[in-house]
């Protein structure tokens, strides 16, 4: 689960990390009052609160929002109201949002800090070791491009669960960033507090990009991003409350409610229902080999409730891009007959307007096949994954 910048900053602040004074605003009037509260004199920063990186380099779809990106420096008091008016309700497109962009429903107004130097600090789960890895780089632009093209510009430091960062590690970071030794204790506090918050709150990623050093040599989190482990949210009801439904695709949201995974791809026309991510990946490959593309897949995992499965199937059936549906279930934990019942329930509710090919294997497969056969639904059954893909593609092409 992701949260907004202003929420992440509040969390970091509660761990003793310095963040700029800020106020959240849903209206231009609130922005104006908020700005006055956080700093009597400008300049201020105004930041669109959508869950996406690269907001500064983004652009708005609407003309009224002006040409600037989603993060704006405001020098004069009189401009606060008008800039907030421009951004609020407009659609911000960034490298990460896709062409449709995201609607800005709130802005964060902050006191502007003059900085002598800035750098990136991030904590992520390193599954290969496994451990938590601290990433440090002097560059504050695109981390992914940096990791791919110039990995030597990132310093990777592996942290254990209980360890605080050692003096040796801190010295290495200081020299990597060409920072004076006087920052040693400030930097080590900053990182230790990030690490503590990361562990205590079950985060899986935490980025402060950038960390700024102000004129009084304070380290300040000028931007913050935190992703939490969905599987651990039951331990953090307060964080769960920070969830912003408007940030998520409706289908993903609904799927998550049922304990399923929903993943949408760019383009494609075939919707798939599977029990397992590996099978989904493999099916996407096979569909590709037959000259078509997967539009989305729903992973019903070990779902054992017929009604939930029916709700999940409806999600796929009602996706307008889907011109054919493939259901491939290899029952182990999951029993095929429950899926068959779910298909019938879903079809009777939303209708079955596109070709459907089903392949059952494993636990209770014969029972499941009989259920579908006697349902009278126009369902094609297949014996293997490849046969299912082949059959569906053929039916789709014939009906074109």
């Amino acid at each position: 689960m992701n949260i907004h910048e202003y929420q992440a900053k509040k969390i970091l602040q509660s761990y003793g990390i310095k963040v700029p004074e800020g106020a959240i605003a849903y209206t231009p009037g609130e922005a104006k009052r908020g700005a006055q509260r956080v700093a009597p004199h400008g300049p201020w920063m105004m930041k669109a609160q959508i869950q996406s990186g690269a907001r500064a380099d983004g652009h708005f779809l609407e003309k009224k929002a002006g040409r600037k990106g989603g993060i704006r420096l405001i020098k004069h008091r009189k401009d606060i109201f008008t800039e907030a008016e421009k951004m609020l309700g407009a659609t911000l497109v960034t490298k990460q949002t896709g062409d449709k962009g995201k609607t800005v429903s709130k802005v964060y107004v902050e006191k502007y800090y003059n900085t002598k130097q800035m750098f990136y600090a991030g904590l992520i789960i390193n599954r290969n070791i496994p451990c938590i890895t601290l990433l440090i780089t002097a560059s504050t632009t695109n981390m992914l491009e940096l990791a791919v093209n110039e990995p030597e510009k990132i310093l990777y430091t592996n942290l254990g669960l209980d360890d605080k960062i050692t003096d040796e590690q801190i010295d290495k970071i200081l020299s990597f960033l060409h920072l004076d030794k006087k920052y040693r204790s400030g930097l080590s506090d900053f990182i230790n507090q990030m690490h503590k918050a990361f562990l205590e709150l079950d985060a899986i990623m935490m980025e402060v990009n950038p960390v700024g050093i102000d004129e009084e040599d304070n380290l300040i989190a000028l931007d913050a991003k935190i992703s939490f482990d969905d599987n651990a949210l039951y331990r953090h009801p307060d964080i769960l409350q920070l969830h912003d439904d408007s940030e998520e695709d409706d289908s993903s949201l609904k799927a998550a409610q049922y304990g399923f995974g929903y993943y949408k791809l760019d383009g494609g026309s075939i919707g798939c229902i599977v029990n397992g991510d590996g099978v989904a990946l493999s099916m996407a490959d096979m569909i590709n080999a037959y000259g078509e593309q997967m539009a989305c897949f729903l992973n019903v995992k070990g779902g054992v409730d017929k009604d939930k499965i029916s709700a999940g199937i409806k999600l796929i059936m009602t996706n307008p891009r889907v011109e054919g549906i493939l259901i491939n279930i290899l029952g182990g934990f999951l029993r095929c007959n429950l899926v068959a019942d779910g298909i019938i329930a879903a079809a009777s509710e939303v209708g079955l307007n596109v070709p459907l090919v089903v392949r059952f294997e494993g636990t209770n497969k014969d029972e499941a096949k009989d259920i579908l056969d006697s349902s009278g639904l126009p369902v094609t059954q297949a014996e293997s994954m490849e046969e299912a893909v082949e059959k569906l593609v053929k039916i789709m092409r014939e009906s074109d």
Partner: protein
Amino acid sequence: MSILVNKHTKILVQGITGVQASFHVQRALAMGTNIVSGVSPQRGGTKYFGVPVFNTVKEAITATKAEASVLFVPAMAVKSAVQEAVESGLKLAVTIAAGVPVRDMLEIKAMLKGSATTLIGPNTPGIITPKEACLGIFPENIHQPGNIGLVSRSSTLTYEATLEIDKAGFGQSTVIGLGDDMIIGTDFVDILKRFHEDDKTKTIVLIGKLGGMYEEIGAEFYAGLLHKKPVIAYIAGTTMPFDYKMGYAGDIITHGKITAERKRQAMRQAGMTVVENLSQISECLKTLK
């Protein structure tokens, strides 16, 4: 022979009285699995499908000499259940549940270091040595005893690959699902090593997928083996653009190198036979006959 479990392995079931456990324990017993005891706090002293139930793992081991355990406990209880297994010195623990918090897994990995326990999972169908022992949730009637070792990082593709082995007219020595989660107990290296030490296993089928670098690490280990058994490998996820589960963070760690094609390259270079499509596994096996 087989690896990790056979018909003599004394098995205990942690969380034996749960609904899902009941279904799968009955099936495992019917297959002949040597389940000697179960653990369920506060149910000690009772019997479940004829299996004596104890309050703790230690009590179960003392009374029944259990050596390996399968955990049918929910994700949030996995950490403490694994801890019990590790502290009791069980040589094998297989944990089925999906959705174990990452932090719990980091703690579990630290516990496993230097312990006697091999952990398989979480989020795995488990381990099966056909007609001998089943610790997990495998579909019925698709496994045949034989000499192909199967190890997979994707639960459902494990079943697909099993069917491919059947189709080629072979059977399995042991089938192992490593688990679908971000952090798993055991990786390809340990299992490849065991299959190479097992006389019965003649050929190994390896199923990998996008995400992490488990396949690359396995390939590196295989490349260094003096006597190699043939490995047929399949990697799912060619058409996915990136590590979709870990996304950005995963790509930063591996410098964006996690593509299925790169995994395949590493495996080919190590000397494995890489197939492009699952259904080529059976064709490939047939040529070995």
